[in-house]
Structures are given as structure tokens and as C-alpha cells.
């Protein structure tokens, strides 16, 4: 008889436990009389949330790769994007077309948030870039507290409103709803996916087709070597914060119509973004996107078959399990556990 190697054994164990989990989900769902339609709905809604997590994770990974900073203020960028857009839109400074008004508000919000990211990097990150990781984490927490506090002063604690994008193309004031196979898909979900796709394509083009993007990638792969090739770490750090802030703002803007934006929406989203980034392995942008989508679907299905109040618990249990069993991320093949 051939002995089973320990690697093989672990693979069998993890495959079995995955099967058990899936069986558990269907058993719990069965108790609630879930059909394919219900599961489809849970997956679709999960994908929508997951796309937002993916965008946030993308910003986190961008900053982490180049500067080694875990940015707790990422959620604040999301909040700023949504709140500034809602605020400017309500001012109606382009009175002739509400659609154009929203586009202008969104662009200004993205520019503003990017500026905030850049100022943050110059003021409090770059001067202390050699400090311990913990000091840097606490500084970004401080930035988050300041931004959220200023938002509370400026906008108060009430929710602002961004209308669903589809309302600009129809007579109705409510979001258009599609019902393929009985699954409800709001038009705003399509907007979220489309916008994310555009963001990903633009980033892909930037990172792979422009000299700045390639310099950025070089910097992410090996900071010292990139520096020796004449790539300024100073500029790359600034660029990382600018990109992360802009992507965060976009996430906030497209999410705005789904959940009315408030000053404190950033914390939870930022944390979920971390989980997504870590599920993806913390270093790779495409993996972070897939991590975000997976996280969104899994937490939504798990919450759907159990209790909606437990939704966040599943996200963070996934976080701990991934860290314990695949700290290099669920997609990466090579072992890189020693990276600190």
C-alpha cells in the first residue's frame, strides 16, 4: 500500500471540508425552502457588494505594494466620493440637465478626493515613511478620524441622496429593474459593474502601456531595484495615493444610489476592503478584485441561508481562515508566508 503524503492528505481534507460547507449551505437553504431563484438572487446581490469591495481592495493593494502602508483611511475616500457627489448634485449648479449635473458633480468629487489623498500622502505619510508599520497604521487611522469628523461637521449625521443613474434616462424617478428568470437586478447594479469594468481597463492600460505605469509596477515588484533604475519612490508613493483615492471615490459614487451615503459609511467598507485584499493575497491587484467578488458572494449567500445580522461575521471568519491556511492569498501558487 502506498503511503499518502501529508500534502496530499491536506488537499483531501480541504476538499472534503469545502464539500461539507457547500452541503451545509444547501441544507440550511433547504430549511428555508430556497430554490435556484433565491440562490441566484443572493449571488447577484453578493456580486454587487463584492464589486465595491473589489474597488476598495484595489486601492489598498496599490498603496501597500508601493509604500508598505496599510491604509485605514481608504474607507474615507469612498465616503468622500459619495458625499461630495451628493452635495454638489443637490446644488444644481448646471441647471439645464440633471444628468450632466451628476456627471460634473462626480468628476469634481473624484478630483477633490484625489487631492485629499495626495495631500494626505505629502503631509503625514511621506515625511515618516520609515516609521514602524504600526505607527503608520495609527497615522492612517488618525487621518480617517479627521476626515470623518470634518464630514460630520460639514454634512451632519443625516444621509444624503444620489439618484439612481437610470432615472436620467427614463421618466420614472425610481431605478429601473430587470427580472431575468425571476431574479431582480437593479439597473444601478449594471452601472456598478460597467463602471468597475471601465476602471479596471483604464488601470490595466495605465499599468501596462504607459511609462509611468510600468515604473509603478517596477516599484511595486522591487522598490530598491526600481530606485536604482532611476524611478523616484517619492513620485510613485504620491501616485499610489492618488490612484487609491480616485478609485475609492469612484466606488463611493456608484454605490451612492444603492445605500444613501452618510459620514460614517467608510469604516465598514474599508474593513471589508481589507478582507477582500487579503483573500486576494494583499499584493496582486487582479487577485484583489477576484477576492472582493468572492467575498461579496460568499458572505451574502451565507447570510442569506442563516441570519442577515451575521453577514459581517462570515466576512471576518473568511479573513481568519484565509490568513491561517492560505496567507499568500487564494490564487497565488507560490509560498510566500514569510513576507512581513
Amino acid at each position, binding site marked *: 500500500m502506498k503511503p499518502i503524503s501529508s500534502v496530499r492528505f491536506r488537499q483531501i481534507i480541504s476538499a472534503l471540508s469545502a464539500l461539507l460547507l457547500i452541503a451545509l449551505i444547501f441544507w440550511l437553504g433547504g430549511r428555508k425552502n430556497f430554490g435556484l431563484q433565491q440562490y441566484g438572487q443572493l449571488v447577484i446581490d453578493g456580486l454587487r457588494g463584492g464589486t465595491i469591495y473589489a474597488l476598495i481592495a484595489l486601492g489598498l493593494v496599490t498603496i501597500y505594494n508601493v509604500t508598505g502602508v*496599510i491604509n485605514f483611511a481608504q474607507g474615507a475616500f469612498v465616503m468622500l466620493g459619495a458625499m461630495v457627489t451628493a452635495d454638489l448634485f443637490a446644488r444644481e449648479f448646471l441647471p439645464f440637465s440633471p444628468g450632466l449635473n451628476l456627471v460634473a458633480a462626480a468628476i469634481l468629487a473624484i478630483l477633490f478626493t484625489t487631492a485629499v489623498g495626495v495631500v494626505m500622502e505629502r503631509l*503625514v505619510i511621506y*515625511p*515618516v515613511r520609515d*516609521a*514602524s*508599520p*504600526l*505607527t503608520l*497604521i*495609527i*497615522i492612517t*487611522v*488618525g*487621518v*480617517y*478620524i*479627521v476626515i*470623518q*469628523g*470634518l464630514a*460630520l*461637521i460639514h454634512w451632519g449625521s443625516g444621509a444624503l441622496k444620489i439618484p439612481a443613474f437610470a432615472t436620467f434616462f427614463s421618466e420614472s424617478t425610481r431605478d429601473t429593474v430587470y427580472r431575468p428568470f425571476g431574479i431582480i437586478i437593479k439597473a444601478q447594479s449594471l452601472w456598478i459593474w460597467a463602471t468597475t469594468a471601465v476602471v479596471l481597463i483604464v488601470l490595466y492600460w495605465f499599468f501596462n502601456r504607459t511609462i509611468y505605469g510600468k515604473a509603478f509596477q517596477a516599484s511595486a515588484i522591487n522598490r530598491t531595484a526600481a530606485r536604482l533604475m532611476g524611478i523616484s519612490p517619492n513620485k510613485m508613493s504620491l501616485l499610489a495615493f492618488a490612484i487609491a483615492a480616485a478609485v475609492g471615490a469612484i466606488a463611493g459614487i456608484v454605490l451612492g444610489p444603492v445605500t444613501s451615503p452618510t459620514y460614517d459609511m467608510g*469604516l465598514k467598507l474599508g*474593513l471589508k476592503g*481589507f*478582507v477582500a485584499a*487579503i483573500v486576494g493575497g*494583499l499584493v496582486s491587484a487582479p487577485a484583489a478584485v477576484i477576492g472582493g467578488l468572492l467575498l461579496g458572494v460568499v458572505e451574502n449567500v451565507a447570510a442569506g441561508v*442563516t*441570519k442577515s*445580522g*451575521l453577514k*459581517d*461575521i462570515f466576512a*471576518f*471568519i473568511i*479573513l*481568519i481562515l484565509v*490568513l*491561517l491556511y492560505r*496567507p499568500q492569498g487564494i490564487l497565488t501558487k507560490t509560498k510566500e508566508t*514569510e513576507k*512581513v
Partner: protein
Amino acid sequence: MNRNLIGIILLTLFILFTGWYEITQPEGFSSLTGGIVTFDAMVRIGILTIVVVGLNLLMGYTGQASLGQAAFYGLGAYFSAILTARAGVLGIPETIAKAWWWPWLLIPAGMALTGLFAYLVGRPILRLKGHYLAMATLGLGIVVVILFRENFGISANVLSLTGGSDGIPGIPRLRIGDYELWPVTRYFFLVWGAAILSIILALNIVNSRVGRALRAIHSSDLAAEVIGVDTAIFKTRVFVLSAMMGSLAGSLYAHFQAAVSPPTFDFVASLELVIMAAMGGMTSVWGAPFGVALLLIIRELLRARMHRLFEGAGGEFEVVAFGLILILLMIFAPDGVIKGFRSLITRVRPAAAKS
């Protein structure tokens, strides 16, 4: 004489003085600080000092980040709260639940249970390093708080243990026989007695063979392993110890506040504990009381004085000012205020540093 011994004596004298002043002087302790630092705040500083001393051992000496320490604090608090205020629901006979020794028994029992929990999760989690460990402990902290909020996943109609988001009110005060440890002036001495004992315990650990092993782990896991330190065991032990200190403080908090609810132990609370530890200086046990006091006093100060600086400034201005102070402290005194102050002196008066 040993500097740590002097520190303990000075702290004890200060505590005795504070308590004596509050009891005997009609205007109370807070009048000494212009009404900014209340006597209640002093009790809170004592409770949190116990948690942060544990955190200092874990993060400062051993170099293992924990962004979920408030979970252990919460486990102690909820353990005491559930088994006293919810004793009837659990079917604990009245003769036991109403006995004076019952809550006292629960404090070490809660510590043991929290320690066991920390041991079980610590074994696997502490293999992680750096950011990964920080994120895992963060997740752990959030999971525990959601369990509190969601009544451990049990339907509230079947058995309401935690009271959901409202928490548990009506936790009894501690008493010895018929002598109740309340009003707060009595409780104050209990809390600070426990805090000073935990400082003494931590100082003893730090200046022993174990302490040197912990510092070796901080410098380098590998090097510590090579010179014969069993890093896994030491990391787990210090993790369990810090969790038990958190649990002790949590129980003390529950009987002080007489009510517990989830926000006190959530992710933000965990971050605050780390900030306190960092403000005081994590590589020193003495940093703990200083850091806790500094953070609470800054907050009280902002609350009491902010509206005089800006016309009509409300609570939100305090939050912004707090964030700014936090950033500035981390930029200019990343090793804590004590060391920051020392290095400031050496910079201003280079001659003084030599003497």
C-alpha cells in the same frame, strides 16, 4: 533603590492621595484639575491600564500586534454580566446568584475561560507575522463583538443572553459580605489595587528570563529560536496572559458601569487600546498608565475646553482635534510621550543628556 520600585511607590502614593482627597475634601478630586479630570475618569484609567499593560507585554515586548484586544476585555465583561444580571434566565439558583462571593468567583472564572479561548485561537494565529497577524486579530475582535450583538447566533426568543445591541443593564455592584464596594470612592481602590498588581506582575515578567526571551522574539523570531527560545510557546503564553488581563479589566468594568453593550468592545475600542499603548510607549510597562491617562485626559480636555476655542463647537470638533493630535503625536513621538519628551530634552539641551 530600584527605579521600578520607586515608580510603584509613587503611583501608590498618588492613588492614595487621589482617593483621600475625593473622600475628605468637599469639592472632590476633579476640582484639582479644574473639573477636567473627573474621579470617574480616574477609575476608567485604572481599568484600562490593566488591559494596556497586557497589550504592552504582547506588542511592545514580544512584537506581536493585536488589533482585537477589546474582544478579550469584552469577554470578561460579558461573562460577568451574563452570569450575574442574567442568572435567572440561565436557571442559576437564587441562593448562589445573590450571594456576595458569586461575582468574585466569576472574575477568575472569566479570566480562565478567556485565557482558554486565547490559547485555542492563539496557537494557530500567532504563526502569522506583521500585518497578517494584525489583520487576523482585527478579524477576531470583530467576530467576537458581532457574536455579542447577535446573541451568539441564538434566537433571542429562545434564550436572550447578551441583549443584542442594547446590551445588559442591571449588573450588581461587588461587595464583601455586607460591605458594598460602592460608592465609586471604594471601587476606585479596588480597581487601582488590581492595576498596580498587574504593573508589578508585568515588571517582574519583563525583568526575568521570560522577559528576555520575549524581547529576543521581538528582535528576531529566527534568532530567538536558534538560541533555544521556544517561540511558539512564549508567544502563546504572553497572548494568553494579555487576554486574561483584558478579561479581568472587563469584569471590573462591568461592575463599575453596571451595564455592558457591544460598542464598548468593538473594533474602534481595540484601536483605541493600541493607540493608548503607542502613546505611552510600548516598550515600557510604565507607558501603559501614561498612555491611557494621556488619551482619556486629551479627550476630557477637548470636551471641556473646545467650545471656548471655537464658538459653538460641538462634539464633532473634538473628534477632529483628537485625530489631529493623534497624527502629530505619532509623527513627532512615535515611541511614546515619555521617550519623545526625553529626546526633546536631549535636542534642546545636549549637555543635559550626558550627565
